[in-house]
C-alpha cells in the first residue's frame, strides 16, 4: 500500500486510541489527584488506605485474582499436557467441550451456584434429607466462604484461556527440544520441569496475566454473590454518589496501578525471553496412541472438568425451567412460562435488541480498525508501528472497570465528550467502549492472517496492474476472511457478555443491554431470577453457536487470540 494511506491509517487509529483509551484513563487519574479547588493532592489515597473497608476490598480483590489464576492453571495445565501427549478416543469433541465454560457468562452461572449452595439450596436440602443437618439451622455456605465461591466460579469460567495458551505453546514447541533432553537421559517429570515448562513459560504467563487481570477486577460475580468487600463492587457502589465523592476515582487508580505493576513484575520474571519461533520444527509431533485404560482416564478427566464447569449453568437452565425450586433437591414443577415471559417482558425485549445493536456496531468498528492496524504493523516499515501494536493489545491489560469509569467521567455533563451521549442514549459511548475492549482479538487474528499470507501474492496483483488498495481488497482480504470472521465472532460474543461497561454506562431502562437487564432482574423480587435465567439461557445458546463457529474456523490458532 502506498505510504500516505498507511500513514493516514496510522494517524486515525492513533487519534482514536488517544481519545478513547488514553484520555478516559487520564481523566480518571486526574480526578483522583485534583481537589475541587484545582490543587493537586494525595489526600484521597491517604484517606483510602486508612479506611479498613477499602483496604479489605483491595486485599480481597488481590486474593480473588491470585487464587483464581492458581486454580485455573491447576485445572488447565494437566489437561493441556494430557491433550499434547496422547491421542485418545473422542478427543476432538472433548477438546472443544472443554472450552465451553469460557462463553458462559459467569455472573449468570453465579445464579446457579446460589441455587446449589444457598441456605435453602440443593446441598443443604440434601444434607438435611440425609439427617446430617438441622433443618432449623441450615449452614450458610456462601456467607461463610463467599470469596471461595467467587474464586471457584471465576476459575471455572477462565481456565479455558489458560488451556488455550498452554496448548498453543506446547504445539509450537519443536518436538526435538524434548527429544534432545530424552536423548541425553532426561525424561518424565524431570524433563517437564527442566525443559518443557521453561519453554512454555511465555505462553503460560500470557494466559495467567489475562486471567489475573480479569479476575482481579471482576464485577459481575461478586455482585450476584452480594459480596461488597472487593474493590470492583466498591467502585460500582460508589458510582451512586459520584457527584462529590472522589474515592471511586482513587480506587480505580489504585486498581490500575496494581494491574500494571502485577503485569510488569510477571513479565520481568517469566516473560523476558520470547522463545516462540526459535528453531524450525524438524519433525511433526506424533501423539502417543493411548491404551484403553489411559484413554478412559484422559476422556474421564476432560469430561469431569467440563461437567463441573458447566454445573452452575445447568443450575441456571433448571432455574429457568422451574416453577418452584426452593428448599428441594430438584424443582418441584417445570414450566416454559419464563421463556415466554422473558420474551414478553419490556425490559428483556429491548435489551436483546440493544445488545445485538451495540455488539454488531462495535464488531464492525473493530474489524475496520483491526484490519488497518494489522496492516500497518505487519506490512509496513513505518517507525513506531510496534507502539501501535502494543497499544492495540493494551485493552487486555487494563481492567474493563477502569475504562468504563473513565468513559462515564468524560461524558458527564459539562465534560469535553458529553456530546457523545445523544440526549440520554448511550449508544455511541457503549459501542466505542465495547469496541476498544475487544479490539485486541480482532487485531491479533487479522495480524496472524497477514503474517500467513505472503506479501508476494499482493505484489503479483500489483505487478499485473492492481492499485495497492485494490490488491489488498481483492487478494489478501479474501484470503484472511477466516481469521477476520473468527476474530469478529469473539469480539461479538464478548461484547454481548460485557458486564462493567454495560452496568456502568447504560442508565435508562430502555437502553439496557442484556447483561444489565439480567442484573436488574436478578435484583428484583418474585420470578426475577427465573426470568434472568431464561434470558441467560438464550444468551448462552446464542454464544455457544458463535464460539463453536470460531473454533471450527481457527482450530488450534484460537489460542493465539488470548495472548497479551
Amino acid at each position, binding site marked *: 500500500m502506498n505510504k500516505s494511506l498507511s500513514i493516514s491509517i496510522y494517524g486515525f487509529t492513533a487519534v482514536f486510541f488517544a481519545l478513547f483509551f488514553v484520555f478516559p484513563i487520564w481523566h480518571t487519574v486526574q480526578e483522583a489527584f485534583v481537589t475541587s479547588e484545582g490543587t493537586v493532592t494525595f489526600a484521597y489515597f491517604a484517606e483510602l488506605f486508612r479506611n479498613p473497608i477499602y483496604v479489605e476490598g483491595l486485599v480481597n480483590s488481590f486474593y480473588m485474582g491470585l487464587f483464581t489464576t492458581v486454580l485455573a492453571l491447576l485445572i488447565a495445565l494437566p489437561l493441556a499436557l494430557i491433550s499434547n501427549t496422547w491421542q485418545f478416543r473422542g478427543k476432538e469433541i472433548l477438546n472443544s467441550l472443554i472450552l465451553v465454560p469460557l462463553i458462559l457468562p459467569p455472573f449468570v452461572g453465579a445464579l446457579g451456584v446460589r441455587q446449589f449452595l444457598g441456605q435453602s439450596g440443593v446441598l443443604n436440602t440434601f444434607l438435611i434429607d440425609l439427617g446430617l443437618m438441622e433443618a432449623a439451622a441450615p449452614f450458610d455456605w456462601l456467607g461463610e466462604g463467599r470469596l471461595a465461591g467467587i474464586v471457584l466460579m471465576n476459575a471455572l469460567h477462565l481456565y479455558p484461556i489458560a488451556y488455550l495458551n498452554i496448548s498453543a505453546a506446547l504445539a509450537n514447541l519443536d518436538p*526435538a527440544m524434548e*527429544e*534432545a533432553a530424552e536423548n*541425553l537421559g*532426561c*525424561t518424565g517429570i524431570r524433563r517437564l520441569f527442566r525443559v518443557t515448562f521453561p519453554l512454555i513459560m511465555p505462553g503460560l504467563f500470557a494466559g495467567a496475566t489475562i486471567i489475573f487481570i480479569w479476575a482481579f477486577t471482576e464485577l459481575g460475580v461478586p455482585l450476584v454473590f452480594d459480596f461488597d468487600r472487593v474493590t470492583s463492587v466498591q467502585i460500582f457502589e460508589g458510582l451512586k454518589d459520584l457527584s462529590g465523592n472522589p474515592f471511586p476515582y482513587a480506587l480505580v487508580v489504585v486498581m490500575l496501578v496494581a494491574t500494571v505493576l502485577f503485569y510488569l513484575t510477571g513479565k520481568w520474571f517469566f516473560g523476558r525471553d520470547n522463545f516462540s519461533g526459535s*528453531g*524450525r520444527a*524438524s519433525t511433526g509431533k506424533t501423539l502417543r496412541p493411548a491404551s484403553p485404560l489411559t484413554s478412559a482416564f484422559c476422556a474421564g478427566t476432560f469430561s469431569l472438568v467440563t461437567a463441573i464447569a458447566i454445573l452452575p449453568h445447568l443450575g441456571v437452565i433448571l432455574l429457568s425451567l422451574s416453577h418452584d425450586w426452593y428448599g428441594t433437591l430438584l424443582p418441584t414443577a417445570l414450566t416454559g412460562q419464563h421463556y415466554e415471559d422473558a420474551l414478553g417482558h419490556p425490559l428483556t425485549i429491548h435489551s436483546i435488541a440493544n445488545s445485538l445493536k451495540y455488539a454488531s456496531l462495535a464488531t464492525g468498528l473493530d474489524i475496520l480498525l483491526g484490519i488497518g492496524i494489522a496492516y500497518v504493523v505487519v506490512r509496513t516499515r513505518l517507525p513506531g508501528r510496534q507502539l501501535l501494536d502494543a497499544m492495540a493489545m493494551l485493552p487486555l491489560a487494563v481492567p474493563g472497570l477502569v475504562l468504563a469509569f473513565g468513559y462515564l467521567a468524560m461524558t458527564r455533563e459539562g465534560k469535553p465528550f458529553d456530546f457523545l451521549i445523544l440526549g440520554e442514549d448511550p449508544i455511541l459511548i457503549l459501542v466505542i467502549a465495547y469496541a476498544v475492549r475487544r479490539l485486541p482479538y480482532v487485531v491479533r487474528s487479522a495480524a496472524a492472517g497477514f503474517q500467513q499470507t505472503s506479501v508476494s501474492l499482493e505484489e503479483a496483483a500489483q505487478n499485473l496492474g492492481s492499485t495497492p488498495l485494490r490488491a489488498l481488497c481483492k487478494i489478501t482480504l479474501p484470503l484472511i476472511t477466516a481469521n477476520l470472521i473468527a476474530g469478529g465472532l469473539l469480539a461479538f460474543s464478548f461484547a454481548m457478555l460485557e458486564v462493567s461497561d454495560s452496568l456502568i454506562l447504560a442508565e435508562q431502562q430502555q437502553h439496557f443491554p442484556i447483561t444489565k437487564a439480567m442484573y436488574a432482574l436478578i435484583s428484583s423480587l418474585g420470578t426475577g431470577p427465573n426470568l434472568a435465567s431464561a434470558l441467560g439461557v438464550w444468551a448462552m445458546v446464542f454464544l455457544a453457536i458463535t464460539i463453536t463457529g470460531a473454533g471450527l474456523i481457527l482450530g488450534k490458532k484460537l489460542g493465539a487470540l488470548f495472548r497479551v
Partner: protein
Amino acid sequence: MVSLHIRGLLKRFGDLVALNRLDLDIEKGELFFLLGPSGCGKTTLLRAIAGFNLPDEGTIHFDQDDVTRLPPHKRETGMMFQSYALWPHLNVFRNIAFGLEERRVSKTEIKSRVEEALAMVRMEGLGTRKINQLSGGQQQRVALARALVVCPRCLLLDEPLSNLDAKLRVEMRSEIRRICKEFGLTAIYVTHDQKEALSMADRMAVLDAGNIAQIGTPEELYRTPNSAFVAGFVGETNLIPGTLAFVSGVNHYVRTAVGELAGRIVSPGWSPAPGQPVTLSIRPECLSLDSSPPVQNAIAGNLTESIYLGETAQYSLLCEGRELPLHISELNPRRVIRDTGAGFYASAKPEDIIILPGS
C-alpha cells in the same frame, strides 16, 4: 563406542511401510551415511536407532546389547537434530552441561568436560552466550558439542548441515569428519545431499522406499552401482534403456534407441540373458564429444546447449529416438564448443558404460 546390528527392522505408519525388514551392520568407529530422497525412510531408521520410534518388528543391537525396546534416555546415543533443538532458556554452557547433569557428574568435572567440548568444536570462551546470539554455524557446533560431551555409544546426526549456507556447509563437513575420526566415533549420518555423503562417508547406504538399495564405500556406490536408482541418485548419470543383444568376452552389446553400445556388467552374480531388458548408465564425465564418428560406441546427435563452468564444460546432445538430451561433461576444457545446432558424436569406453537391470 559400539558396533550396530540391525535385523529385519519393520516400521509402518498406517498403510505406509517406512522401513521394510531392513538389515544393516555398522562397524565400530565407522562414519556411516544413510542417503536417499525424502520419504525413503532414512530419518525413520535414525530415529528408530535413537529410540524415538519403536519398530513393529526386528531388532537393534549395540554390540551384544539388544536395545530394541530400550527407551531413548537409556540408549546413551548422542543425537544432533536437524533444527539443532538447542534450548533457548539455557545458555551455551548449560546446554552442553545438560546431559552431564543428568548423569550426576560432579560440578568440577562438568566444568572441565564442557570446556573441553567447547574447545573441540572451537568455541572456547563462548559458554555464557545465549543461543539466540549465535550464528547458524555456531549453533551447529554447540549442538555437536552437546551430543559428544556425554561420550555417547554412538553419534546420530540428522541432516545437521541442511540449515547452513553452502560455504559453511563445506567447511563443517571436514570439521565433523575430523572430530569423528579423532575420537574414533561410531557415527550415523542422515542426509539427502550425495556430495556430503561422497565426501565424508567411510561407507554409506542408499535407501529407497524403506529398502536398502545398496551399501558400500563412496567409490563402490559411484563406480559400481547395482541399480538405475542408485546410479541416478549418487552423482549424475545418463540412463539409456535397451535390450541385451549378445556377449563377447567381457563386453556386452546392448541394442538401444540411439544405436548399439558395448558395456560391462559390474554387479557380481548378475548375468542377464540375450533378449532381456537392461538399462545403461553413462556418467557425463565418461562421455567425450567429437565432430567425426569414433570407432566404438558412437551416439550421433545435435548439440543443443553448451555451458562453461570454469573447471568443466557441460554439453547437451539431443539424439534421435530419445527425448532427454545426453549430458556430457568435459574436464579442464581448453576450447569450448559453441556450435549449437551442429551435428556431433558422443562416445564412451565400454568399461565406462555400466549395464544395470532394466526397469
